């Protein structure tokens, strides 16, 4: 990479490839988690399910079906971004081909950058909902608790906060990705 205008590009690419690899794994895990929650919700009794679905959608902003769809879209988006970064990496020794590869990268990542704030706000709502679940479980009046199974209660107290921590970690990685993409945008 002889041209001065691409100084620093190699280091940025290397860092961003690592972020993409970790991020796609994180989004995949998130997607699998939301699918498992959706299936678990379907197995609940009719009465509890209708209330749980309403409570979930009000707090997280979307239904579980929508969260599954969103996670799959986000995963697909980052797979496209990773492929575009890979193409820049492949042409880095030929400066004449870099602008075209960078344009492809911009095309792949623009919708993520445009929606970044909305994505973070939505994920934050989801994370807070999961982190607050043990407190919420305790505040459910006893007559209503009678219609929840012991397994439901265990999940709400033990597993939900772990999922919340996972979403927070995903948000941190998305923030890193956003900063690195913005850095890559400065190259012509």
């Amino acid at each position, binding site marked *: 990479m002889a041209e001065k205008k691409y100084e620093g590009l190699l280091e940025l690419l290397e860092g961003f490839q690592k972020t993409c690899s970790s991020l796609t794994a994180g989004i995949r895990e998130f997607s699998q988690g939301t699918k498992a929650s959706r299936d678990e919700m379907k197995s609940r*009794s009719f009465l509890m399910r209708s*209330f749980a679905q309403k*409570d979930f959608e009000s707090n997280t902003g*979307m239904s579980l079906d929508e969260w599954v769809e969103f996670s799959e879209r986000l995963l697909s988006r980052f797979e496209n971004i990773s492929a575009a970064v890979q193409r820049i990496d492949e042409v880095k020794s030929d400066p004449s081909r870099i602008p075209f590869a960078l344009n492809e990268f911009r095309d792949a990542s623009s919708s*993520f950058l445009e929606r970044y704030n909305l*994505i973070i706000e939505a994920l934050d709502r989801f994370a807070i909902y999961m982190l607050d679940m043990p407190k919420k479980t305790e505040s459910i009046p006893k007559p*209503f*608790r*009678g*219609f929840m199974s012991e397994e439901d209660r265990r999940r709400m107290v033990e597993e939900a906060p772990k999922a919340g921590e996972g979403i927070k970690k995903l948000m941190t990685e998305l923030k890193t990705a956003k900063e690195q993409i913005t850095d890559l945008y400065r190259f012509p």
Partner: protein
Amino acid sequence: MGEDLASALKGFLEEMKAMLSPKIVFGEPIVMEDKTIIPVVRVGLVAGSGGGKGKEGEGGSGCGGVGGINPLGIIVVLKDVPGFEGIKIMAFPSALGQALGELLPKAMETFMTMMAGKKPLGEEEKEKLLTV
């Protein structure tokens, strides 16, 4: 019975099977310091299905149902009282049971709304997220 109706009816019956699980009839026990309380409710259900074909050979089918929950009472098991003496069955008067049956879903809904205090995202925001 056409395939569409058979498939719709199968799905509907699966749904009803989940609804009529014993957990709905006997609530999970509420364990307290000196006693355990088991709520007892009756689940009522009316279901129907049908299908037909028009002149052009196109047909339609469907099924539906409506369910209701009627609290009947509670079973109280006293921890320190052995034998039958330690088991109390407290039946609600039918009018109270009916009133509670109407109240319970509304109370749960109000409670959940109060707990939530938030609203789902708007359609435009959802659209943006689902097309990222």
